[in-house]
C-alpha cells in the first residue's frame, strides 16, 4: 500500500536509426523533395527572421554605438560585456528577475495544480469552468498590468479600501511594488500552467487511482504517490515553459512601476539601454546575455532535471 506505483510505462526505446546511407527509392526521394518544397520556404523565412537578428545583435554588441551618433561607432570587442558584468546594477536586476521568477513560478505551480485538479474533476459545467479559468490568460499582459496598477493605486484603486489600508502606496516601496508585480503575473499566467498540468493529469490512467483507492490510499496519499510521480514529465515541461517566460518579464514592470523602486528586471535593462538610450551596442550585449541565461535555464531543465519535451507533443503512450 505504501509502495509507489510505477510511473507510466517509459517511452518505448526509440528504434535506433541506422546512420548507414540507404539508397532511396524514387518515391522516397520525391517525398523528400516535396517535403523540402513545402517546408523549405518556411525554414528560410525562419532563419531570416530569427537567425539574422540574433547574429546581428551579437555583432552589434561588440561596438560602442549610439544610434544618434552613428559617426562615433567604435569596435570595442567584449568591452560592453565587461561594463555590464562589472556593474552592480546588472547583478541587482539579475537578482530581482530571479526572485520574481522563483516566486511567481512556485506559486503558479501550486495554484495551477489546484486549478487543474478542479478542471479535471469537475462534473458539471466543465467547459464553462475551463473557459472561466483560462480567461486571464487570454488578456493581453499590458492590459492586465494596467488593471492591476489601477487596482493597487492609492487614489482610485479598490485594494486599499477593501483591505482598509487608507492611502498606502503600493508602488512606493521595493517589496510592496514587487508584490504587486508578482500578483499581476501570477493572476495572468496561472491558467497557462494549469492547462499544461491538466494535460498531464489527463494522462494518468484511472486504473492507478482506483487501485490505490482499493488499497486504502487516502486523498493526499493518492496525490503524493500516484498523481505527482506520474505527472512529473508534465510538471517539468510546465515549469520549463513558465520559467523561461517569467525570466523575460517586462510588460508588468514597465506598466506598473516603470522600473522605479528597484523593480527593474533584465529585460527592462535591455530596453533602457537599447530603446531609451539608443546605445545599440550596450543594449545588444544585455540582450545577448539575457538570451544566454534563457538558454542556460532551458539546458538546465532538459539536462539536469531530464525534462522530456516529447511529453508535450503527446508522443507518449
Amino acid at each position, binding site marked *: 500500500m505504501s509502495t509507489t506505483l510505477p510511473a507510466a510505462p517509459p517511452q518505448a526505446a526509440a528504434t535506433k536509426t541506422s546512420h548507414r546511407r540507404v539508397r532511396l527509392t524514387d518515391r522516397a526521394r520525391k517525398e523528400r523533395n516535396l517535403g523540402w518544397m513545402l517546408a523549405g520556404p518556411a525554414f528560410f523565412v525562419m532563419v531570416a527572421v530569427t537567425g539574422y537578428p540574433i547574429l546581428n545583435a551579437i555583432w552589434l554588441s561588440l561596438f560602442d554605438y549610439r*544610434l*544618434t551618433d*552613428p559617426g562615433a561607432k567604435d569596435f570595442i570587442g567584449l568591452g560592453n560585456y565587461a561594463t555590464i558584468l562589472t556593474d552592480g*546594477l546588472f547583478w541587482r536586476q539579475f537578482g530581482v528577475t530571479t526572485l520574481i521568477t522563483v516566486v511567481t513560478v512556485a506559486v503558479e505551480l501550486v495554484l495551477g495544480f489546484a486549478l487543474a485538479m478542479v478542471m479535471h474533476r469537475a462534473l458539471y459545467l466543465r467547459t464553462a469552468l475551463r473557459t472561466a479559468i483560462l480567461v486571464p490568460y487570454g488578456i493581453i499582459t499590458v492590459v492586465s498590468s494596467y488593471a492591476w496598477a489601477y487596482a493597487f493605486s*492609492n487614489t482610485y484603486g479598490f485594494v486599499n479600501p477593501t483591505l482598509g489600508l487608507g492611502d498606502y502606496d503600493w508602488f*512606493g516601496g521595493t517589496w510592496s511594488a514587487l508584490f504587486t508585480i508578482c500578483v499581476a503575473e501570477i493572476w495572468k499566467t496561472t491558467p497557462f500552467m494549469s492547462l499544461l498540468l491538466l494535460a498531464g493529469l489527463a494522462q494518468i490512467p484511472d486504473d492507478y487511482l482506483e487501485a490505490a483507492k482499493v488499497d486504502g490510499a487516502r486523498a493526499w496519499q493518492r496525490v503524493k504517490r500516484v498523481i505527482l510521480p506520474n505527472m512529473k514529465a508534465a510538471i517539468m515541461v510546465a515549469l520549463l515553459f513558465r520559467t523561461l517566460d517569467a525570466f523575460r518579464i517586462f510588460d508588468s514592470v514597465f506598466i506598473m512601476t516603470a522600473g*522605479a*523602486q528597484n523593480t527593474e528586471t533584465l529585460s527592462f535593462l535591455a530596453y533602457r539601454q537599447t530603446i531609451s538610450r*539608443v546605445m545599440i551596442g*550596450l543594449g545588444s550585449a544585455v540582450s545577448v546575455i539575457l538570451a544566454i541565461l534563457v538558454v542556460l535555464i532551458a539546458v538546465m531543465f532538459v539536462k539536469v532535471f531530464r525534462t522530456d519535451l516529447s511529453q508535450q507533443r503527446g508522443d507518449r503512450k
Partner: protein
Amino acid sequence: MLKRPAVLLLTAALLTGCGGGSGDANTLSYFIADAAQADVAARCAAESGGAYSFDIQRLPNNAAGGREQLLRRLAAEDRSLDIVSVDPPFMAEFANAKFLRPFTDAERQEFSAGVLKGPLEQSTFRDTLFSAPLYGNTQLLWYRKSVLQKAGVDPGAGPVTWDQLIKGASQAGVTFAAQGRRNESLMVWVNALIASAGGSILAPGSENLPANQVKSGLDSPAGTAAVTIMHDLAVSPAAPAGFSTAGEEDSRAAFQADNGGFMVNWPYVWAAFDAAIKEGSLPANFKDDVGWAAYPRVEAGRESAPPSGGLGLSISAFSDRQELAVQAIRCLASKQSQTEFMVSAGNPAALSSVFDDPKIREMFPMADQIREGMDTATPRPVSPYYGDVTGSIQTAFHPPDSLSPQKTPREANSLLEDVLSNKRLI
C-alpha cells in the same frame, strides 16, 4: 497555376502597406502630441486652398514614449515623416544626429519673432533653429487661499521659498504637491531646483563636447540645495501620500483634496479645474479659493528659474516635402493657431503677443505670470545625449525621500559622467 498579376498585386499592396503615409504629393504626415493640434491642422489645410492636406498621426501621450517613437523612425530614415512635434529637450538629440531639417536664416527670423525666451532657447541648437515653437510652458506655484493664514505664508504678497512653503504647509496640516514620480517630470523638477540655486546639471559648454568629455555640475552647492529641498519635502508631513509615484495629475488630485494646500504644476490645471467643476467632482466655487504665484525660490535672495516645457514643430530631414512642410508650419504655428491652441488645450502660447489677447486674458487670469515665467524659465540641458542625462537624473534622484544631501550630489555626478562615457548602465 498561380497567377502572376495576383502575386504582383499582393506584393504592391504589401509594399505600400509598409511605406505608410499617403502617396499624395500634397499630403503631409503630421505627428501630433496633443489632440487639439488636429483641429488647428484641419483649419490650416482648409485655408491652404488645396496646397496641402494632413495625414494626422498621434504620438504616444507621454514624453518618453513620443521621443522613442520619433527616434526609432527617424533613425531608420523613415520617409513617411514630414512634420513632427518634438518635445523641446529631445530636439538637440535629433538635431545632432541630423534627423531634422535646420530652418534657414530667413525662416528662423520668421519663426522666432516675438517668441518668449524660454521656448526660443529650447528650439535652437548650436545657434540654429530646428523647431518652430508651437507652445511654451512653465510651472507656477498654485495655492489655496483659505490655508494661507494657518500656514503663515502668502505667496501672493511676494516671492516665497521652498523652505517656507514646506514649513507652512506642515504647520497648517495641508499638502504641498510636486512631481516625485520617476519620469520626465522628476527631471523637470530637479532642473528647476538646480537652476534656481544658480547651478546647472551639465557644466556650461558641454553642448558641443563628445559624450565622454561632458562634465556634470551636480556635485556643487546648487546640487546639494536641490537634494535638500527634495528630501525635506518628501519626508515632511506636507508630502501627499504616494509622493514618490506622483505625476502631474496625482499632484492635481492632491491639491483638489480637502487637505490640499500648495502645488507646483503647469497651467493646464486651470482648465482642468473647470472640467472637474463641470463634471461635479469639484464645488462650483473651487476656483475662487485658488491663487497662483511665481515658482518658489531656492534662496530668498535669488530669483527662481521655473521649468520650461512646450512643443516645437520640426521637419524630418528625410521628408520629400520639406518646402511644403515649411509652408504648412507657417499656419500651424501662427499667432492665430497658437491662440486657438491655448484656448482649446490650455497650453500657453510661445508668442508673447498672444497673452495680450483679451479673450486669453479672460480665460487665463494668470496670463502675466505665465508669460513672465516663460521668459525667466530655464530649459532642461540642451544636449545631444539628453536621453542619458535624463535617465541618470531619474535614477539618481529617486525616490526623493531616500536622497542624502551629503551623498546624492556626488553619486549623481559620477553616475551621469560614467553613463555618458559608456562605463555604467542605467
